[in-house]
């Protein structure tokens, strides 16, 4: 299939998913209640989920291109745990401030994300190049380190704060309103715009730094810019709905299998696929033990764990 055909199919499926999913599990109650649930809960939730899924998938795609590594994502590289730590510390310290209408938690998570990625980047630079093993191990190490700091923060917190942090870590889209949609929108939009603008650079990054530089690309500047916008985006998403795992790894891979590696097609496909994928996961999370809900992070991780292993085995056999 040609990329354009795949993209059209993905556009149509996305529209269908966005339109159908709010109505699923909406049988009980009077028409008035149903209307209220639909407009006040479901629609903002679908919009938010779409933004979060798109953002995570796009950031994963960028990481995989930047590090030339199929396993690199905001999660495997510790960015999400950095963001979580930032958010947890914010809750623990009990600060409450907002800047430009944005919650302080978003800034805290963003700072954590940027810190984590700078650390991973510095280590891999020090090692003189991006060896995939070093990179993943650094990411895993920093994830563990931050996770224990989160536990420590949680231990120090009172019961309320501790529960709030706990809820974050599970990754949930339950208590989302229009306010959250508006908070997330600028981050995902800016990130998407920059990524779209840099689609040729992303193609070159896939070819490796030496080739990218010899073609005339200022690799380090571009990489810093991409680090910055992806940290911004992941930081915002994690602050608002917790670290929802594996979307950023699975979706870009599936899309690459569908449309190939050219970012001209890969970016729009990943954007739409990521959004609809998370909506599907969230709908499952909502319906599977209805009226109760499972955190969506549980669903994505249940799907993502086996996928990660499959990818690991597959890339191992290809290397040998």
């Amino acid at each position, binding site marked *: 299939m040609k990329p354009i055909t795949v993209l059209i199919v993905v556009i149509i499926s996305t529209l269908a998913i966005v339109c159908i999913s709010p109505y699923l599990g909406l049988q009980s109650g009077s028409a008035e209640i149903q209307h209220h649930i639909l407009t006040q809960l479901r629609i903002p939730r679908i919009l938010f989920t779409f933004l979060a899924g798109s953002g995570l998938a796009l950031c994963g795609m960028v990481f995989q291109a930047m590090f*030339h590594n199929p396993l690199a994502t905001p999660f495997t590289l510790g960015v999400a745990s950095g963001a979580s730590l930032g958010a947890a510390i914010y809750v623990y310290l009990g600060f409450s401030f907002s800047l430009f209408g944005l919650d302080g938690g978003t800034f805290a998570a963003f700072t954590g994300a940027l810190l984590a990625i700078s650390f991973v980047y510095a280590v891999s630079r020090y090692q003189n190049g991006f060896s995939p093993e070093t990179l993943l191990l650094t990411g895993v190490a920093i994830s563990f380190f931050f996770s224990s700091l989160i536990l420590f923060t949680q231990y120090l917190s009172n019961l309320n704060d501790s529960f709030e942090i706990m809820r974050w870590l599970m990754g949930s889209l339950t208590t989302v309103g229009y306010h959250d949609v508006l908070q997330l929108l600028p981050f995902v939009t800016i990130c998407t715009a920059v990524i779209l*603008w*840099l689609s*040729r650079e992303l*193609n*070159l990054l*896939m*070819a*490796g*730094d*030496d*080739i990218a*530089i*010899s*073609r*005339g*690309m*200022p690799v380090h500047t571009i990489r810093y810019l991409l680090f910055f916008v992806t940290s911004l985006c992941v930081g915002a998403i994690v602050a608002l709905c917790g670290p929802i795992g594996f979307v950023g790894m699975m979706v870009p891979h599936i899309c*690459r299998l569908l449309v*190939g*590696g*050219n970012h001209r097609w890969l970016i729009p496909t990943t954007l739409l696929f990521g959004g609809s994928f998370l909506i599907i996961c969230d709908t499952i999370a909502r319906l599977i033990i209805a009226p109760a809900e499972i955190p969506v992070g549980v669903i994505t991780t249940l799907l993502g764990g086996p996928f990660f292993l499959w990818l690991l085995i597959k890339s191992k056999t290809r290397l040998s």
Partner: protein
Amino acid sequence: MTSFLDVNNVSLTIDNKALLSDISFQMQSGDYLCILGPNGAGKSSLLKILMGIIPASSGTIHLQESNVLDLSQKQRAQQLSYVPQSHKGLLHFSVEEFIKMARYAYHSALSDWHGQDKQAMERAVEITHTEAFLQRQMNTLSGGEAQRVMIAAALCQQTPLLLLDEPTSFLDPRHQVEVHQLIRELNQQHNISIIEVSHDFNHAAQHSQHILAFKNGKTQWYGVSKDLLQAAHLQALYDQDFVFTTHPQTGATIALANELS
């Protein structure tokens, strides 16, 4: 008369270790220069410095009278192109997409692919005989095919100077000959100046015009290629005895590492 390429006192020091010290040489337009030397002599580092992949610690580089170190990376990529020693398989790109990417330096984010790009690409593909696998995926190419695609992409950049890092090291004899013929054709028929890092001193002595030989990051020998094949020069360069014979057909001198010594 000013030179086409003028490299002056270029040094590279990493972690207090001098990888290149005071390398100077000139090159005329249309020249074919081979860089020889033992492993770790700094040959590849020099190419990377010229291309801007790693910064030189000191020294100046002038190309067609402009200071290369002052150019933006895009401007530099319009003057120099580079074929790296090894390259990862670009799993999800077709050959055509990969070659097209080489026109990066001539575009901004919004400019369209235009007639000049198409021409450059068609020409590069024609010269390298890569028409047949334009639609194939990069990871399905054999070593010889991949090397021709890499050269096609570098040609697509339309630069007066082409840098090649051991372009034949991983190829079988047939593909070595094929790639070397292609390089000579680029140099002689298309007037592209070439700097090639190589271990094949016999080929370099016969077909290149000048040889620059490094040892431990310093210039060991620099001169007209055919003068290199002498026992003293080669022995000093590689710390190895050589014996000499002549090619039965061309009569050219051939050096062989003497395993009996």
